[in-house]
């Protein structure tokens, strides 16, 4: 199933690996920050609600 | 407007105005490079156009972040904004003052430093021409960068990061004029493009800079 990459196997592998790592890093960072901010906002809103309620 | 220009020139020349800073830095670059690269005349001759232009560019950049910051700190910027002088005019005059204080001296000193860097004979005229045409753009683009970062903490460092990419076209065309001039090739195209960028910047950037200052004064 693996295609015959010949002498360029390292080059192609490196390119794919680097790109996938960069994309995953970006996605992970974005998702992680989304979670942090969402939780923080919920806490602030709850605190506001308690104060005003 | 003239009064503002005179005031700024007087401020720059007076003690602590930083008049000689840009020049000293330019000299430093011209001295350091041969010490780093080696005295080999052939290599120096090849890289001298680029080094002279990079030196001039960095010297301009060095002295630019104070252009609005000083007035911002002592409140003059607020008062200038409420004075009858349009902010666009104030920005242009300040860029002109910076050019007269830093840009012009660089242009005049560059040939002397060209000797240090073994610039080929034919290159001197083109060095003067390209710097004379290019440094006004460096001043007004730098003024835009300074306007963007006035009032920000560590604005100076940020300004260099913002302004450097904007300097690249001027640098590339400017150095190209000198390189081709030094080899006796036709310099028409890069010279025209260099002049075009300077004209465009001088015409449009003061408006962007004034808008940035108004935002920062809010």
């Amino acid at each position, binding site marked *: 199933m693996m295609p015959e990459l010949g002498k360029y196997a390292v*080059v192609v592998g490196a390119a*794919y690996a680097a790109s996938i790592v*960069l994309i995953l890093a*970006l996605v992970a960072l974005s998702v992680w920050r989304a979670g942090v901010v969402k939780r923080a906002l919920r806490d602030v809103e709850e605190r506001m609600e308690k104060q005003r309620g | 407007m003239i009064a503002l220009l005179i005031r700024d020139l007087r401020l720059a020349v007076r003690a602590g105005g930083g008049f000689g800073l840009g020049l000293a830095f330019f000299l430093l670059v011209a001295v350091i490079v041969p010490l780093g690269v080696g005295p080999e005349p052939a290599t120096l001759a090849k890289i001298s156009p680029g080094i002279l232009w990079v030196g001039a560019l960095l010297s301009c950049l060095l002295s630019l972040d104070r252009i609005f910051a000083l007035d911002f700190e002592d409140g003059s910027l607020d008062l200038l904004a409420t004075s009858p002088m349009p902010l666009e005019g104030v920005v242009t005059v300040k860029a002109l003052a910076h050019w007269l204080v830093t840009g012009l001296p660089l242009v005049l000193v560059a040939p002397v430093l060209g000797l240090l860097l073994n610039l080929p004979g034919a290159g001197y005229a083109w060095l003067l021409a390209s710097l004379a045409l290019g440094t006004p753009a460096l001043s007004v683009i730098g003024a835009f960068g300074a306007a963007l970062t006035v009032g920000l903490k560590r604005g100076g460092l940020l300004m260099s990061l913002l302004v450097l990419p904007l300097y690249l076209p001027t640098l*590339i*065309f400017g150095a190209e004029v000198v390189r081709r001039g030094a080899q006796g090739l036709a310099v028409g195209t890069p010279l025209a493009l260099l002049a075009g960028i300077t004209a465009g910047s001088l015409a449009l950037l003061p408006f962007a800079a004034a808008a940035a200052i108004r935002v920062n004064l809010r």
Partner: protein
Amino acid sequence: MSIWEYANPKRFMQTSGVLLPWVTAAALVCLIAGLIWGFFLTPDADKFGSTVKIIYLHVPAAMMAISAWMMMLVASLIWIIRRHHVSALSAKAAAPVGLTFTLIGLVTGAIWGEPMWGTWWAWDPRLTSFLILALFYLGYIALWQAVEDPDTAADLTSVLCIVGSVFAFLSRYAVLFWNQGLHQGASLSVDQAEHVADVYSNPLYVCIAGFILLFVSLVLLRTRTEIRARRMQALLARERLA
């Protein structure tokens, strides 16, 4: 239902909340399909050998890097003209994504170039203009970080984006002027001679679709985060004042 309806963050959050899962799913499907198709099922090209497979990352990433900046330019214009908060925050959200695509374009370009040009980095006009684009992205992101007040930050970054676009365009041609260039012609160019063979271009289209969808889903996600962060900042500011 003009886009001005979306100026109100509340409606944008509701709609984007619905859209996000679908767009992300579509992005995953396209990416995986495109890369697998390109990686496993294409023959080696005569001149490039198996390195041609890198095209499925390099070209889409490079295209998206430029499109991302254009999207930010449009968003900045919308902010300056209509004070449309969501568009300013979407520009802020898109910048890191654009920077990542530029880096992917650079890295794959450099790696791919190594066997062909014999060096890891060649000052080739296109690679260099992507390096310059990366600098523009860095400056833009740094300016957003440096300014506390969100509205001031939005104004300043919009002005920088507009002015930066002009100079990025100038740099693109200055760099072409400055070096003759080793880069191959346009893979997807209009004239047939230069256009890469169909067996390669079909997976390429899928990969490009995948990258576009990935960009949209990431920007939607990050914009939602920026809006939440902005709302939290507004609440805390008001609380400090009360």
